[in-house]
């Protein structure tokens, strides 16, 4: 009896390998199979169309005449069937560096490299120590010297000649560098129990800024700020926008820092008090080092937000990456090839933001593991 019964029960069919994986993840039911086939067809078709448009039929270069004017006839004849990457080939220096003097554009290029280096160094945990602040100070000073010039034999370049990617990086990075200390102070003020007046001011600041759009702050910086200044004092447009971004970033970062402060067990405060530390000793040596470590991933995410939000300065006419792209396509030669420029701009923004968000994800996992 036992022999027949056992042989009647077959082991469950398990298929391994790619086919087994596909059975489980793509064709597990009729419904799933239908969705897979439909989506697969659409993806295949669209990617083929895109490759044909973007690679096969694309125009990569166009002849440039003696005056340096590009001749876009080839692009116009390929319009609709092929991309015109020639607009990028012709305009990439303008999109990246704006109106910065052509011969001196190695300087903003070095600045971009410095910014990227600064991000990478700040991301390495081996550098998470007090010296990092010094590195930032040195790097930001070097960037300022390179952009402005006027010292060390570098020719002076006025600020209204700057443009493109360095402006985007300057607005976001300097914004972070100045907003961060402000945010820590505001967060501490908002958490303080003994100082109701200070707490009220901090709450008002944070809630007011977070309740209004950045555009309104930028408008404020461009039309209202000149009214605030005594006569004769003229602060340039970029600096005013930078101040608006710092105030804006400060409020959002303050909330992130506050979350870190709240996550800290109360015992840490009490133990520090018991040791007789003063408020600033307690905050500087006990509270902040622990609280800030916790909030690094959300800080990075907030920074990604600011990096994208700096594109809003387009609205008040500051020459950042997006504005440079928009001006490049408003040129009569290249009108009608905006899609290509937008794709490249999107790719640049995406590269920065994606790298940072991947980093923040990885960090979150590492920190989670360390805490367990």
């Amino acid at each position, binding site marked *: 009896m036992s022999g027949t019964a056992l042989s009647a029960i077959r082991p469950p069919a398990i298929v391994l390998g790619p086919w087994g994986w596909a059975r489980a*993840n*793509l064709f*597990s039911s009729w419904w*799933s199979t239908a*969705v*897979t086939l439909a*989506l*697969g067809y659409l*993806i295949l078709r669209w990617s083929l169309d895109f490759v044909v448009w973007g690679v096969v039929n694309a125009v990569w270069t166009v002849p440039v005449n003696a005056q340096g004017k590009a001749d876009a006839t080839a692009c116009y004849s390929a319009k609709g069937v092929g991309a015109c990457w020639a607009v990028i080939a012709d305009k990439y220096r303008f999109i990246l560096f704006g109106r910065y003097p052509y011969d001196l554009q190695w300087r903003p290029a070095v600045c971009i490299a410095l910014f990227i280096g600064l991000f990478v160094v700040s991301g390495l945990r081996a550098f998470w120590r007090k010296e990092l602040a010094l590195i930032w100070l040195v790097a930001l000073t070097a960037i300022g010297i390179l952009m402005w010039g006027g010292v060390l034999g570098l020719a002076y370049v006025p600020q209204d000649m700057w443009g493109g990617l360095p402006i985007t990086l300057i607005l976001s990075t300097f914004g972070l560098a100045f907003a961060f200390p402000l945010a820590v102070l505001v967060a501490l003020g908002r958490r303080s129990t*003994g*100082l*109701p*007046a*200070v707490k009220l*001011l901090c709450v008002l600041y944070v809630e*007011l800024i*977070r*309740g*209004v*759009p*950045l*555009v*309104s702050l930028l*408008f*404020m910086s461009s*039309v*209202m700020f*000149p*009214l*605030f*200044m*005594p*006569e004769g004092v003229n602060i340039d447009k970029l600096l005013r926008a930078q101040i608006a971004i710092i105030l804006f970033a400060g409020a959002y970062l303050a909330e992130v820092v506050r979350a870190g402060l709240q996550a800290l067990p109360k015992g840490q405060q009490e133990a520090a008090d018991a040791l007789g530390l003063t408020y600033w000793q307690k905050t500087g040596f006990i509270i902040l080092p622990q609280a800030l470590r916790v909030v690094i991933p959300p800080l990075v995410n907030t920074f*990604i937000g600011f990096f*994208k*939000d700096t*594109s*809003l300065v*387009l*609205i008040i006419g500051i020459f950042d990456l*997006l504005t440079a792209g*928009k001006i490049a396509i408003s040129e009569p030669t290249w009108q009608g090839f*905006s*899609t290509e420029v*937008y794709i490249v*701009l*999107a790719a640049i*923004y*995406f590269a920065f*933001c*994606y790298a940072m*968000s991947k980093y923040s994800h990885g960090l979150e996992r590492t920190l989670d593991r360390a805490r367990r």
Partner: protein
Amino acid sequence: MSETTADPRLTGPRAAPRKRIRLSWSDPVFRSIVWQMVVVGIVVAIVWYLTANTNRNLAARRIATGFAFLSRNAGIPIGESALPYDPAVNTYGRALLIGVLNTLRVAVVGIVLATILGTIIGIARLSHNWLVARLAAIYVEVLRDIPVLLQLLFWYLVLQSLPAPRQSLRIGDAVFLSNRGIKLPLLVWETAHTGALIGFLVGIVGTILFARRARRRQEATGSRPPVWPVALVLLLGLPAAIWGALGAPFAIELPVLRGFNFVGGGTVSPEYGALLMGLVLYTAAYIAEIVRSGIQAVAGGQWEAAGALGLSRWQVLRLIVLPQALRVIIPPMTSQYLNITKNSSLAVAIGYQDVVSIASTTLNQTGQAIEGIGLIMAVFLAISLSISLFMNWYNARIALVER
């Protein structure tokens, strides 16, 4: 045993000894008062300095402060307006009111659409089908990492580069896509439709009341009277009956090409369409992540336990998983709703006339910079505050009631 060493538990509560403030730096109360006076003093000094400068500058430029300009004649042409508006006669006040309505039109529709799309994509990310899950993940990654302004400009470009009305893309004879916007057929509105709408609203209230009764009944007796037949009658039957009783009018106004443009029908302008599309697609990526993490936050054991009790998959989702997931979802969702509202101010970049756009035109024409910016901020603060209050109320309603 002397009285001073008596057990405090026996003598009852005693007032804490009154602390006297000493004028010494080692007294924490004194210190905190000094610190606060210093901080408040600095803030007041800065504000006073800026106000003094502003007053001097305004006087020098001969700009009168105040909101008197609101009742002056505007002369701003407005493309889309929910209220009758004529730039020749109407005032700045009315123009700004139209701006506020236009902002709300984008924000409300955007919030609804982004919630629907975001929920679909968030659930798709958890799909068992690998292709669906990957696609949803790619959507989220790509759309989140590109500035929303760039996306808006791109969609505006797409909508503007549609063919001219004569060569427009069409779906039947009803929907036309052209560079003048999207033309849709419009129902000719009559009293019967208003009646049907009121009937529908009454139906909603009735259904809610009946569902509540059914619930009480279930709690008392254990058996639940079926709700759906009543809901069907109230939600569909009642409006249909009113509509039929009033003569069942049904006429559709189709857009018709006349000369170089369309006549009749409803319009979605390229500006509004691009703004809505950009905001919805961008915010949906964030909402998808919120929905996904909310559903994942509900432990798998909940599904299994509910299944073991004999609930259907839909019942498990509705009665067990969603109520728990919502607690995680609602707070971050609130901030996305606030973001969509605030990001609607990017309208100014593509020429949709929201409150920011109209206020900035106003302040350019009148020079009333402070009042203009103040109005923008007040409008957004009011909208933000209303959304926060509503969402906080909803959050409190669904929050875990702890003993």
